[in-house]
């Protein structure tokens, strides 16, 4: 009974996400498109909750629906809200994308059955080691949240790399945007006149 509820919830959320993605592509107003992107991230977070991934849902809701949306909206402050796109459907990219899609669909025919506890990925020794031997009073690490214990202790070196990547993103954005002076109005006028003469 609960299995059908879970599968229906997953299908419903995926359908809503599909609608929001098509709306993002079709919208000409960039502000609306980015708000829809925030809605898409929030639906993805809800989907992660249905798939029992609580840490991932937390992070996706905070980072995807929060920070990512705010940053792109702040870009729209500088670049304007409207796109001047004339055609939304272009045939050559559409054919390429459909070809890639056909290959991917052919690949999914080999996927193992969804949610079966006997799948190879759940039977592997390292998963059972993490789930059985790390939490609990006599465990190796002794904290209940297995994801945190993997992230911070067993695979702590990868998390060091991840923190460094976040720090490097800050350095990158600081070097791109840090030294700009506020002469936005002058620059736009001169560039507009140059673009008009070039086109």
């Amino acid at each position, binding site marked *: 009974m609960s299995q059908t509820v*879970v*599968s229906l919830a997953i*299908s419903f959320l*995926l*359908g809503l996400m599909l609608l929001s*993605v098509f709306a*993002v*592509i079709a919208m000409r107003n*960039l502000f609306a498109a*980015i708000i829809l992107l925030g809605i*898409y991230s929030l639906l*993805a977070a809800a989907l*992660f909750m249905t*798939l*029992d*991934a609580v840490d*991932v849902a937390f992070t*996706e809701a905070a*980072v*995807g629906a929060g920070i990512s949306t705010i*940053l*792109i909206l*702040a*870009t729209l402050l*500088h*670049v304007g809200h409207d796109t*001047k796109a004339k055609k939304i459907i*272009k045939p050559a990219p559409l054919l*390429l*994308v459909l070809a*890639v899609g056909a290959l*991917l669909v052919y690949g*999914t*025919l080999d996927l193992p*059955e*969804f*949610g*079966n*506890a006997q799948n190879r*990925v759940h039977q592997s020794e*390292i*998963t059972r080691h993490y*789930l059985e031997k790390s939490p*609990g009073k006599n465990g190796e690490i002794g904290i*209940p*949240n*297995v*994801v945190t214990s993997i*992230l911070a202790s067993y695979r702590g070196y990868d*998390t060091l790399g991840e923190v460094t990547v*976040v720090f*490097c993103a800050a350095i*990158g*954005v600081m070097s*791109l945007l840090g030294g*700009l002076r506020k002469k936005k109005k002058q620059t736009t006028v001169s*560039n*507009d006149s*140059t*673009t008009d003469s070039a086109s």
Partner: protein
Amino acid sequence: MKILYLFNYWIVIVIMLAGLYAVIASSNLVKKIAGLSIFQASVFILYISSGKILGGTAPIVDSSVPADVVFSNPLPHVLILTAIVVGVATTAVGAALIIRIHRAYGSIEENEILEYEE
């Protein structure tokens, strides 16, 4: 049942293709970044759905869970956690590049930038 779950995977693939199409085909740079973000999130869904066990629960093992409960696989969660944060880092750098491009060329439409270059 298998067809229903294959169908779910196919919807995820359609979302992935829509994101890929937005990256390739839109001429607006902000829409390209949005398409990249859509693509990344759909890959995460495909990955996390491999770790789910039907009838299982979240992988938090403390004394309040009953003894015979099955836990979903925590390993994909860890990998995707890192991937999400790296994704927002690349989105931030991409958005900063868009601001600089707009300052340099006056527009963020791909065809106008190419015309300016000629």
